[in-house]
């Protein structure tokens, strides 16, 4: 029987993979894509939660996450284009101007 725990297990693994991407890639585009992976693993958890608690609320949350993801990509890609223009690279480890 498929249960909430299965959803949780899968989404934990996917989240882990996404986080690996963020940690191990230097390319800003890759990091953005990995973030999308992480967000989607959350979506997966939420749909599992919705299914197993018979609840509408997680679905609303999924919609809101979609919005956040869209905005994040739009702004992130805008930044990427800009950084490429200014610094000629998208390697995040080279962006350290905000050092305290």
């Amino acid at each position, binding site marked *: 029987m498929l249960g909430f725990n299965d959803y949780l297990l899968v989404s934990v*693994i996917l989240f882990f993979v996404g986080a*690996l991407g963020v*940690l191990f890639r230097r390319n800003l585009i890759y990091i953005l*894509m990995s973030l999308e992976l992480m967000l989607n693993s959350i979506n997966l958890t939420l749909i599992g939660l919705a299914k197993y608690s*018979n609840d509408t609320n997680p679905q609303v949350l999924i919609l*809101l996450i979609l919005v956040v993801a869209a905005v994040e990509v739009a702004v992130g890609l805008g930044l990427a*284009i800009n950084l490429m223009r200014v610094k000629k690279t998208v390697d995040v480890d080279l962006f350290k101007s905000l050092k305290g």
Partner: protein
Amino acid sequence: MKTVFYINALFSLIFALGVIFGKNPLRSALSLLLFFLTIALDFFFAGSEYLGFVQIIVYAGGIIVMIAFVIILLGLKKESPDYDITVRSFTGIILLGFFALGVLYGLAKSVLHLIPKAPYFDTSAAGIGDALFSKYLLPFEVASILLLVGVVLAFIFAKKEV
């Protein structure tokens, strides 16, 4: 049902790994697209057709196209591996391992079984719409403002002169 779910999950995992270990950014983007489709399938399995299609429309129709666009625009080609293999990354792995362990430990203890059940599961667009425009009106409006801010920011960032 469980088998189907896990087969789909396996595909999700493969595509996710394809994203993070890809060498060609465009291929990675496509891998991400396929990953999204598998997640949409998960939504269908859970009975939420509406969210599944919205997932495809937003991610496939919007986000991946944008990413592919930027990849082309920036001229990112197949490159030598750019992995960031440092102490920091491995610390991260260890921390994440602890995190995953925590979740699995929680699963083992089944602390998450105790979710109260509502009597009736509404996955229709109308049901979600009702919730969105009544109980979640404020988050909805905040999300709309967030979108607006995103539009403005993206516009400013992408302009020729900053």
